[in-house]
């Protein structure tokens, strides 16, 4: 009797907000089929979405507390209001470039649940008064998105024209002002200097432009159906909803998981303290992010504010675990060498600073013992200080953050390399994911392209 009553009580509580309870949300139903979810299946799972004429969308998104999942954690409604009502119809860009090599969540969404992203893009367009939306994605997902758009055109469900544009395979391809540059016909992605205000004013085709990450838009697609209260029914009070995380460094990899914000990070990625003993550190946020010790990782709660209290960032949700048998110095040097090739090549501090860092770390990782240069680590930190805050964009700042945190978490390994102590066991490189082409080499002279 009591049990029945309790069960009914639970059911009633879950019924107080419409929509499916708990998590996963974005990944719901994706485990069963290794193919894109068709429009009919998508509608069977989530129900129809009516966005036309919806004036409440921006308020719903604001009340939901949704923030951007592309790495910046900026309030979505604030961004929408900044492009709406400027007198010209804005353009909405669904940003699926995912230039971060360690991240795989955006590609997963676009290739498996494209309709959720497209729902969000349509909702964002209606909310901001846009008549045009662009899905900006790597070549790997473009055909899937186009097929999904064709299905929607037949069904006549989108109130705005949505098209696909191909993002270059480059680290900076997803940076907001670089996105606008590429869509305006510029070949290589290059961020503008102090451009955030200007793309909200003049972006794609000279119109106010909203660039929003595809995971963020997938959340929008569900908020537009079930409302802010549903969105907030999972997650913490100051960090509502769920987020996607890409975990690398263990089999199968990369794996994308979805977890409620505010939950323990170790639960989100299913990491027990016993598992953690197999790793010597973890990279949070990606290659512009921060290395943390496994103790720090085990103690973190899944929220950006908790990460920042630990002097880290969740960024776009990358958790790269570094196994014990890998030489961290060689891995860090490898990534910095890649990041050097991925700069836009448009300013001196970045071109010279990243070249210097790549050279210093490469020498530490693979060179002869640097007995004559006991200050090598201090010199690396000095170059970090020389590039921080001086680039045209945040690329050098990210590399400096990556290198500084590595110097702190892997201090013992750096010191062993300085003394010429061989890595035990033999150094294995290639754990942190990098594109197969290793990064295109860019013109290195600042001012070569302006």
């Amino acid at each position, binding site marked *: 009797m009591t049990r029945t009553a309790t069960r009914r009580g639970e059911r009633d509580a879950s019924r107080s907000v419409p929509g499916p309870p708990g998590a996963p949300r974005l990944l719901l139903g994706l485990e069963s089929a290794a193919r894109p979810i068709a429009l009919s299946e998508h509608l069977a799972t989530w129900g129809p979405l009516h966005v036309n004429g919806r004036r409440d969308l921006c308020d719903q998104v604001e009340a939901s507390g949704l923030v951007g999942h592309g790495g910046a954690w900026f309030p979505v409604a604030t961004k929408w209001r900044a492009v709406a009502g400027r007198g010209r119809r804005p353009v909405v860009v669904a940003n699926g470039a995912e230039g971060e090599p360690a991240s795989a969540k955006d590609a997963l969404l676009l290739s498996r649940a494209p309709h959720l992203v497209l729902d969000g893009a349509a909702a964002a367009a209606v909310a901001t008064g846009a008549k045009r939306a662009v899905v900006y994605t790597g070549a790997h997902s473009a055909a899937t998105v186009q097929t999904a758009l064709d299905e929607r055109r037949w069904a006549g469900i989108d109130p705005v024209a949505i098209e696909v544009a191909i993002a270059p395979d480059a680290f900076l391809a997803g940076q907001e002002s670089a996105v606008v540059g590429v869509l305006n016909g510029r070949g290589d992605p290059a961020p503008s*200097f102090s451009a955030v205000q200007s793309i909200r004013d003049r972006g794609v085709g000279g119109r106010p432009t909203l660039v929003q990450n595809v995971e963020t838009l997938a959340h929008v697609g569900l908020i537009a159906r079930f409302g802010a209260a549903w969105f907030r029914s999972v997650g913490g009070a100051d960090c509502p909803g769920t987020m996607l995380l890409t975990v690398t460094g263990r089999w199968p990899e990369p794996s994308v998981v979805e977890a409620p914000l505010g939950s323990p990070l170790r639960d989100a990625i299913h990491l027990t303290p016993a598992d953690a003993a197999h790793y010597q550190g973890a990279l949070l946020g990606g290659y512009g992010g921060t290395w943390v010790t496994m103790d720090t990782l085990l103690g973190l709660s899944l929220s950006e504010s908790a990460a920042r209290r630990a002097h880290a960032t969740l960024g776009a949700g990358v958790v790269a675990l570094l196994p014990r048998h890998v030489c961290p110095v060689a891995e860090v040097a490898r990534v910095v060498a890649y990041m050097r090739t991925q700069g836009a090549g*448009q300013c*001196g501090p970045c071109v*010279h600073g990243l070249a210097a860092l790549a050279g210093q770390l490469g020498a530490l990782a693979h060179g002869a013992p640097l007995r004559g240069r006991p200050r090598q680590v201090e010199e690396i930190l000095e170059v970090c200080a*020389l590039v921080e805050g*001086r680039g*045209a964009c945040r690329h050098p700042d990210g590399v400096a953050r990556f290198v500084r945190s590595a110097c702190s978490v892997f201090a013992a390994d750096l010191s062993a390399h300085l003394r010429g102590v061989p890595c035990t066991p033999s150094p294995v490189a290639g754990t942190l994911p990098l594109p197969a082409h290793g990064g295109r080499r860019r013109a290195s002279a*600042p*001012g070569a392209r302006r």
Partner: protein
Amino acid sequence: MTDWHVTIVVDPTRCDGHGICHELFPERVSIDRWGYPVVAEGDIPPALFDHARHAVNECPRLALHLLERSR
């Protein structure tokens, strides 16, 4: 009375590291190991406004700007 605060800003996408700003305004602009300007933090005192303007005007890449704001 309005209190004006003036700082100097480098557009790093324009700067080619000619170093003229450092020669003309060494009080606030040093150069890094690659020849690019490092501007000292904080407001420029009024006594140095002329030096600052001179450095801005003589930059061959027009990469320097004076940023004025009132508080």
